[in-house]
Structures are given as C-alpha cells and as structure tokens.
C-alpha cells in the first residue's frame, strides 16, 4: 500500500509520460487519459493484486480499459509498475511498437483486454467476472468506461447482464469528465443520470472525486463490502487534469500538443 505522497510521485510521472507520449506520436488522446490517471494509479498500486510475478497470469484481479483511447494512461501506469520499460513509452503509436493506439492484450503485459471500439470492454469485464465465479476464486474485475462511451447501447446490455447475474466481483468506474469529442456530453446526447440507470439494472452505485485518493479508496471499500450486486462508481473528474490549458476543454480529447504546448505542460507537471 503506497502513501498518497508516494502515489503522487507516480501520478505526476504518469501525467508527464502521457503528455510526452502523445506529443512524440503527434496523435492520441490526452484529455481522457489525464482524467483517469489517478484512478488507474490507485487501482494498480493500492487495490488490485497485480505484481511482476503474476502479471502474465489470469489468476489475479483483472482490469479492462473500456475507453481504450485512454491507452496512454494505461501504458503509463504499467510503466510505473515496472511491467513496461519507461523508454518504450516513446514508441507509442509508432510502426512496429507494442504500444498500439488502442491497447492489444497480446502485446503488452498487464493489458488484460484488447479494447478501443467503445462499449465492448464492459461486456468483456462481465465475462471475466463470470469466469471468476465459475472458477470459484475471489479475484475482482475492474473496468473504466467513459461518460461519452455510455451512449453506446451495449454498455446497458452489459449493465443488465451484470445486474442479472449479481456480479459483486465487478466494479466499474464511470470517468465522468463531462466532455466528449463534439462537446458537452449532455449536449451531444445526454447520458445522464448514470446513478439511476445503473440502479435500475440492480447495481450498487456510489460516487467519488476521481482525483482524490481518499475518495477513490472509500468508494472501492464500499464496492468490496457490497454483496449480490455489481458496483458502479461515478467518478467526478476533470478532462485534461493537471495541464492548465487542457482542463475542461473538449478540444483536447484527441489532439496532440505541439512542442511549445508540450514544454508548458511538462513545466506545469514539474517535468524535466
């Protein structure tokens, strides 16, 4: 269990790497990567039983990044964990790289599901949770879906099936940063309310501040204590969190910073 201070060293480094990865690739999705950075750090360091010895096994807790375009955040945390050399991060989105634009489970240790096409990852997480039940183990399955992603009907098919099968070993974060490519999620196609929708499908629902470790930890504790229902944690987040000019700007969903912008971001993140 890392302290908040130790975790913050990791999240600062993750954020720097996210900006650098997207900058060097001149493409990628910084906004939604920065919004789920703190959740990922907590999951990989303080929640899931994943380590260098079991990373290549399925006999452990699993994680599905349903919003696969936030791959820079996932690669960054895998690097912090030591599963991926930090210098390899700078091959992100390049030819012959293991670090595809959207994650491939067969290339990268610690990537538990290939994702990228929105709406499918939560269903995959449901399948993993069913497998854990069949295998009678107590491993848990975690998933992050985007708020915009929840416009996909399949998210609610998955929610229905997880509720139906009472998968209390499944815990889903909704990265509620409020923005998608074309703008405010409520203006593009209003997916709200999340809580009542999940509750209607027989989920336990709680909320957290997705950038506050105490708040994330408390929500996960509630999820673990909850029996007979899957848990949805509506995480209030800021798109582009940590880079002033990216924060709360839909325009930074899928755009790379130029050299000057990258330098400003790294300065703000107390980078090199």
């Amino acid at each position, binding site marked *: 269990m890392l302290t908040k201070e130790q975790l913050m060293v990791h999240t600062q480094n993750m954020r720097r790497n996210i900006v650098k990865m997207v900058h060097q690739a001149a493409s990628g999705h910084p906004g939604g990567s920065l919004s789920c950075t703190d959740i990922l750090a907590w999951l990989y360091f303080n929640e899931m039983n994943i380590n260098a010895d079991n990373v290549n096994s*399925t006999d452990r807790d*699993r994680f*599905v990044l349903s919003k696969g375009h936030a791959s820079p955040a996932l690669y960054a945390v895998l690097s912090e964990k030591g599963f991926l050399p930090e210098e390899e991060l700078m091959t992100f989105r390049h030819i012959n790289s293991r670090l595809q634009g959207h994650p*491939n*489970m*067969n290339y990268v240790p610690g990537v*538990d*599901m*290939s994702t*990228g*096409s929105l709406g*499918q*990852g939560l*269903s*995959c*997480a*449901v*399948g*993993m*949770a*069913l*497998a*854990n039940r*069949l*295998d009678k183990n107590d491993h848990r399955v975690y998933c992050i879906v985007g708020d915009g992603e929840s416009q996909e*009907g*399949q998210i609610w*098919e*998955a929610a*229905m*099936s997880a509720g*139906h*099968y009472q998968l209390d070993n499944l815990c889903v974060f909704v990265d509620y940063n409020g923005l998608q490519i074309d703008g405010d999620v409520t203006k593009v196609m209003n997916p709200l309310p999340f809580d009542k929708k999940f509750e209607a499908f027989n989920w336990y629902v709680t909320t957290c501040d997705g950038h506050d470790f105490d708040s994330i930890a408390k929500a996960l504790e509630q999820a673990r204590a909850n029996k007979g229902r899957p848990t949805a944690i509506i995480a209030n987040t800021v798109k582009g969190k940590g880079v002033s000019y990216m924060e709360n700007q839909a325009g930074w969903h899928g755009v790379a910073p130029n050299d000057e912008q990258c330098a400003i971001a790294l300065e703000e993140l107390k980078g090199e």
Partner: protein
Amino acid sequence: MGKMATRDAYGNALRELVSENPNIVALDADLSKSTKSFEATKADPSRHFNMGIAEGNMMAVAAGLAASGKTVFASSFAMFATGRAFEMIRNSICYPYLNVRVCGSHAGITVGEDGASHQALEDIAIMRAIPNMTVLCPCDGKEAYEITKYAAKHVGPMYLRFGRSAVEDVHDDSYTFTIGKGEVLKEGKDIAFVACGLMVQESLKAAAELEKEGICPTVVNMASIKPIDKELLIELANTHHTIYVLEEHNIVGGLFGTVCEVLAQETRTARILPIGVLDSFGESGKPQELLDKYGLSAKCIVERVKETN
C-alpha cells in the same frame, strides 16, 4: 442412412463437451431451444448462461470468458450471431485471438417461413473476411458433431454454421473431420461440384440424375471454408473443365468467392460458376419451395449444368 439437422448434432456434441471438459462454457441469446445450446444445461447448468436478446453483449462477454481461459460456444441464429454482433466478433474476439466459437444456427434460406429477416445469406462472407477467423460449415449430423468436437481443441476464434432442417446423412460413423481438407465424395470427370452445407446433399442428388445422362460430376464437400483446401481446388481446376461452386448463401463473398480468390491466382483450365443465391434476399416459404425458387435444389442444379455444360 438417416436424417438429422446439423444444429441437433451440435447440441449433442456440446452436451458431451460440457460434460467432459470443465473449461467449456456455453452462451445463448434466448434461442437455446432452437440453436440446441440448451443441451449444455443437461450436462452442467452452471456453465450455460442465457444472455438474453443482446447478441453484441453476448459476444463480448464470451470474449471476456475466453480471456480468462475458457473455451466458449456462443450460439444464436446465424443472422444475429454474425450480423448484429459483427463488430464485437471482429474487435473483441478475432483481434485478440480468443477461443470463442460463434455458432450460427438457422443459416441460409431453408430457415423457411420466417422469411428474409432471419435468412442469413451473408454470414460466411462477413466471418471469413475477418483475420484470425476459421469458418466451418458441416453438411450433415455426423460432420456437425465431429466439427463441434474438433472446435473444443482448436486454438483461436471460429465460426460454425449450422442449419435448421433435418438433412440426409452423407457420412457414416467412421467419418473424421480434418481442418483445411476438402472431401471428395464422388470421383467423376469433366465437371466438379464443390459444395458446403446442405448443398452437398443437393449436389449428390444432382450428380445421380446427371449420371443417367452420361454426365459424371466429381463431388467435393468443402466444409472447411477458411482455411480452404487450396491444393485440392488447384487439382480440380486442372482436371475438369468446369467447377460449380454450390452454397446456400449469397454468391458474393462466400464459398464461390473463396474458390475464385484461390483459383484467380493459379494457372488453370477450368471455368468457375456459382450456384447460390444470386445477390438477393430470400422470402417466406417451405424449405423445398425456396430451394427450387432460388435455384438451389438438385433439379435446378441439373438444369444449370445442362445449360452451361
């Protein structure tokens, strides 16, 4: 020889697999009585999950189970299994190379009375267009049983195509299935029938009729569509003047498309002609009426051969 629907044989094999192998899981989308996947519940109800009428979710749930080490048989009508869930099959099953068997029953026009909305005539085309996918279409109960048993051992994603109607047995109990191999059922000369599914039986009936008039077609059962028996196709194309490719499927992109793609790249003497659904939707009707109307029955095959021979 008796009669059996390939879906019934699938159900029997699946029940045995669930009973023999703790790693097998079956999923269905509210059609388990029709697809016969409910047979799995007789072996172990805990390893059969009804996912409701939500095929897209079912396929991605299957992917998640497979990513946890299970071998998953996910069944629905061929139309919805492959059509509705195409992109889940592509991105969540085939791209990560997971052990999911997409099992499409009620394929083709012989679904009958349900009509065009339920008659999958594009499923072979869309499944075989996906990298990593294996596509198999058995012609009778014995072959469907063997293919289902084989599927439990295969590594990587598969599409298995089954039919609704009872079809005559082509094989006896000694038959064993070999992936990537065509099966020469009848050695003839000049013309060859390369068929899959129930078109194998129609080909055999047509061949028997044609023999009365001195035309002796070679008849090949090509249950393994991807991978296809390239060697056999090349041999056929250089020892016959015409290859007829027969399928209960649109002539676009299915077995005819596969054969053409292979032989277009080879030096050959034979021309290649399709006998399938001519890029149209089907309609309601009895299976035999539909086979006659859409040019697929033995009688139609005989006519087509006489017109083109």
